[in-house]
């Protein structure tokens, strides 16, 4: 490699910091540093004439590395890197440091000490710059195709968005029909419109007008170009990389050709098999060959394999005028090549069977909301009549029980969030249709947080729905009268009630869909403590996941009402589109690299990588070496902090660069206080250091900051080397344990620090000389305080004398 010629550019930030730091002395100092070939001073270097000074120096060949002391490095380094790249230098050969917020401002009361610290900081940057190596860009192709898993309201809307944007979309649904939970719900709150309404496509479908909503089956959904709907299908395998996934689907046989079926109903009329209808909550029966009503999509019959007698009977085959039925259809395996994946697998009702005191499976007149919704639906098993399932007679008295299996530590601790509104919806619908009905809702808290939801509650009260604050203790059945008795303590009136009723409706918890766990394993996604898919960041990236190219929407992340699921779906669609729209991902290879000659096959790094970027590559004689996916690697260095043989390094921060910076930072003290090295992450940790400076909070200049991408890269050797190099105390400053930008880095650093403290103790070194701090940007005051406290503590401990 060409010998390093370092240009040092000292910005006094418009003269602000030259009032504190002695810039003459700094310039003299850096001129003498080996390898420095060019020194310039200006009021700013990130734009205008200052920036031109840098690019001119590059173009003239005077420098091949740049160290720039500039204000707001997070922004200025982007601009400077871009400019030097245009001038012909690799943008990763630039090191930007902040003499204002990291030195002049916080140490403004001690200018000479601040100047000495600035020298150490500049030396560290120069020594690092000399060791910097160019980093290339790489391109990874993306397929402009998306897989949407789950054909409920969220999945359908995301699929439609993407198809209309021109991407090839595969929408898969495990059931034979689209619609999901929404299609069974009948109506939606708070608008009371049909649940099977979706946004109608805006692409030109000739006959479909672009009014805001249509029933799914009338919307022309299936005719949207680029949309491929696969029902009866589930994902069984995902291979490949983000942007280029190879997905294998298992497609169960329908036994009826979607293309040929004319939905004439002749097959149903001859089918001799009658079974309870799952879709209608088993309140009615259906044939072994059937469609769901209201019809969603596809408009083709399906055979229930568990019920059908197949060739023993085959009456449907005989009558089908379209020759659409094929009893010998087999399970197919379909392979798809997609660029991104959206998970929209939704949620389901919790089975309240386990809650013995409510006798759900024992008393037929204890039902769930979904069962009631089917009754309320005019297409449903009772054609809209509310009946007692035990005898089919009308139910006039109805009690709703809230929080069944939710907000209950025995079952699900969380609030399912939508059940209050569902109960209000159902109570309102009943009261509107049957004003004489006696409707009571037993609740813990009524939660109506959405827009217009409180009005909905008021409306229910006005209609005469009764509210009892209390969680029922037990539901009893009186066989003589075939009535149910709900035992509940009214907490407001402080009395025990025994509510006699015809029907009890359990507002059960909403839990993750079946097979969520299995799908998470296939996709490599994390689940939260309640078993829902975990998003990348709840606040900022609510529809993204830690796996690049895989997105989430709808109830898969938590129970949601339809408006929220819609929002979520549109967000996921945008994210999925953004990921693949360029046809390629261009990335600077600021990634980890494995030196295969040294990788010892311990297989630790694949486990510690939060991005699944490290796999094991087989070599001869059953040996393996770690392999880093350049596409998946985020460059945090947690693997580097793990590797016990030093076989993994970051291209953008090698061990020799860390060591050189550490030595330089500790080479000059210039203060009467003991030197303290603060190893901070580039994310929250460094942001806290920034903000302490910005806010002019004072801390002593003996505290020196060494920036690493993530504290997860920190090895115990760095801590020991710091003490050896003259540090009297070491601070490790990272993100909050649960707020680490690289997921687990901060937690791993904490464990390393704890074990290192035990080690220091054994070495006869006071463990208090080492501390971990978890800070965020707005905690600049805490950084300043920690730096002060650490200094005082170390001063009290006295000078550390190492052999």
């Amino acid at each position, binding site marked *: 490699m060409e010998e390093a010629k370092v240009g040092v550019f000292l910005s006094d930030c418009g003269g602000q910091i030259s009032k504190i730091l002695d810039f003459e002395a700094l310039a003299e100092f850096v001129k003498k540093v080996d390898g420095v070939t060019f020194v310039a001073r200006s009021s700013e270097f990130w734009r205008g004439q200052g920036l031109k000074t840098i690019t001119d120096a590059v173009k003239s060949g005077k420098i091949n590395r740049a160290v720039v002391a500039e204000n707001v490095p997070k922004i200025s380094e982007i601009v400077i890197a871009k400019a030097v790249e245009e001038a012909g230098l690799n943008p990763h050969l630039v090191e930007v440091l902040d003499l204002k917020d990291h030195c002049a401002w916080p140490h403004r009361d001690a200018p000479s000490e601040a100047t000495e610290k600035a020298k150490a900081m500049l030396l560290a940057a120069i020594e690092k710059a000399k060791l910097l190596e160019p980093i290339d860009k790489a391109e990874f192709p993306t397929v402009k195709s998306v897989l949407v898993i789950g054909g409920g309201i969220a999945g359908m809307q995301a699929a439609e968005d993407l198809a209309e944007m021109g991407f090839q979309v595969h929408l898969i649904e495990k059931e034979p029909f689209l619609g999901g939970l929404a299609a069974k719900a009948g109506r939606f709150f708070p608008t009371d419109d049909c649940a099977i309404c979706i946004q109608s496509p805006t692409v030109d479908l000739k006959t479909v007008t672009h009014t805001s909503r249509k029933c799914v089956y009338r919307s022309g959904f299936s005719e949207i170009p680029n949309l491929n709907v696969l029902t009866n299908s589930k994902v069984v395998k995902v291979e490949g990389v983000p942007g280029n996934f190879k997905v294998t689907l298992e497609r169960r046989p329908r036994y009826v050709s979607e293309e040929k079926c004319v939905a004439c109903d002749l097959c149903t009329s001859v089918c001799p098999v009658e079974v309870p209808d799952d879709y209608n909550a088993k309140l009615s029966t259906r044939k072994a060959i059937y469609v769901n009503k209201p019809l969603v999509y596809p408009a083709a019959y399906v055979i229930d394999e568990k019920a059908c007698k197949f060739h023993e009977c085959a009456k449907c085959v005989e009558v089908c005028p379209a020759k659409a039925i094929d009893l010998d259809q087999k399970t197919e395996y379909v392979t798809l090549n997609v660029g991104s994946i959206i998970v929209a697998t939704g949620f389901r009702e919790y089975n309240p069977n386990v809650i013995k005191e409510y006798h759900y499976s024992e008393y037929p007149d204890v039902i769930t909301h979904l069962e009631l919704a089917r009754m309320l639906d005019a297409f449903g098993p009772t054609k809209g009549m509310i009946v007692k399932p035990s005898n089919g007679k009308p139910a006039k008295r109805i009690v709703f029980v809230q929080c069944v299996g939710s907000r209950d530590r025995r079952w699900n601790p969380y609030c399912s969030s939508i059940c209050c509104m569902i109960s209000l919806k159902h109570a309102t619908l009943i009261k509107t249709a049957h004003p004489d009905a006696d409707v009571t809702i037993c609740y813990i808290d009524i939660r109506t947080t959405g827009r217009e939801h409180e009005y909905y509650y008021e409306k229910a009260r006005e209609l005469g729905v009764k509210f009892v604050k209390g969680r029922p203790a037990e539901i009893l059945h009186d066989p003589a009268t075939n009535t149910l008795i709900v035992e509940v303590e009214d907490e407001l009136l402080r009395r025990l009630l025994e509510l006699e009723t015809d029907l009890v409706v359990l507002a059960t918890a909403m839990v993750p869909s079946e097979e969520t766990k299995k799908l998470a394993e296939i996709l490599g996604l994390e689940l939260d403590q309640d078993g829902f898919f975990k998003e990348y960041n709840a606040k900022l990236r609510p529809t993204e996941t830690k796996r690049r190219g895989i997105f989430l929407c709808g109830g898969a992340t938590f129970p949601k009402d339809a408006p929220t699921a819609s929002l979520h779906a549109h967000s996921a669609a945008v994210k999925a589109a953004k990921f693949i729209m360029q046809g390629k991902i261009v990335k600077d290879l600021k990634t980890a690299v494995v030196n295969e000659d*040294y990788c010892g*096959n311990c297989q630790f790094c694949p486990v*510690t990588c939060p991005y699944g970027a490290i796999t094991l590559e087989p070599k001869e004689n059953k040996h393996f070496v770690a392999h880093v996916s350049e596409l998946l690697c985020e460059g945090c260095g947690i693997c580097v902090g793990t590797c*016990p043989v*030093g076989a993994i390094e970051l291209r953008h921060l090698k061990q020799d660069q860390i060591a050189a910076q550490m030595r330089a930072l500790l080479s000059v003290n210039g203060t009467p206080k003991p030197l303290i090295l603060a190893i901070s992450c580039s994310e929250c940790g460094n942001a806290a250091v920034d903000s302490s400076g910005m806010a002019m909070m004072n801390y002593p200049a003996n505290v020196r900051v060494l920036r690493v991408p993530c504290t997860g890269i920190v090895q115990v050797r760095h801590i020991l080397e710091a003490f050896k190099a003259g540090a009297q105390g070491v601070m490790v400053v990272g993100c909050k344990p649960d707020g680490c930008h690289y997921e687990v880095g901060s937690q791993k650093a904490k464990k390393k620090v704890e074990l290192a403290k035990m080690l220091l103790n054994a070495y006869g070194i006071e463990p208090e000389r080492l501390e971990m701090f978890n800070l965020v940007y707005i905690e600049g005051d805490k950084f300043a305080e920690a730096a002060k406290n650490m200094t005082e503590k170390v001063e009290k401990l006295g000078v550390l004398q190492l052999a």
Partner: protein
Amino acid sequence: MDKLKFAFYWAASCGGCEIAVLDINEKILDVIAKADILFWPVAMDIKYKDVENMPDKSIDVCFFNGAIRNEENERMAKLLRQKSKILVAFGSCACDGCVIGLGNLWNREKIFERAYLETPSTRNSEGTTPQFRVKVKQGELELPEFYDTVKTLAQTVDVDYFISGCPPPVPRIIEALDAILNGKLPPKGSSLLLNKAVCDECPREKKDRKITQVKRIYEIEDDFKTCFLDQNVICMGAATRGGCGAQCLKANVPCTGCGGPAPRVPDQGAAMISAFASIAVEPSVIEQIVDPVGTFYKYSLANSILRRKVMSK
């Protein structure tokens, strides 16, 4: 061609390295055919004075085992360096300090107190401890000075090659001898073990790599095929230079780290601690480590970054 001239020496060591030399069995005949052994205290009666009288660099290769614990060790290290063309640090003590190096958790005073006064089996009513110079009726007696700090050979003199292990693995000794006899030595400063870790040679199957607690070997029912770490027993194999063929693991004993640090690592214990803490599932696992130095630095304390304990004055 003249025969090569070899020397073997032991400083602060247990003698196991000497046995390892003999463990090469019939290979010794090849060695004798091509080389003369000039100096080997364990096997030949030659005095230090004889070595002093040898011309400088008259020994082609000196295999030096043992750590530098006392003044005699240091004097011999310097002498043999002067007399040898190639100096090989042979075995863990010479390379990394080994168990002798754990003495760096104390100093001379503490070690003498323990060894000569406190141990339950010691009866020393007069409180006698070694003195370096003692006047007796017949004159003055001298003992080599016992140092506070154990050093490795390379911390004392310039070393050409390293072959660690406690003792060095026989196949690697044979390879080293072959390389020397055939003039095919690697660049100066190389280790004659392997560059990969013990894990790479271990036949045990690696599983989920998540340590949920720390157990001693007697606390588990070993299934004889799963990696010890996956059975919650600390094994140093991941952080230890290989070349031993994972022989301890093959005998169902976890690696304790005698191969020393991996080539690119300055501190074996710190490297394993970092890896261990990174894969420990809960912070509580960390607290279960009883003896961090004894566990992670059994062989390498003297060759670690901090080298020894800070003793309060």
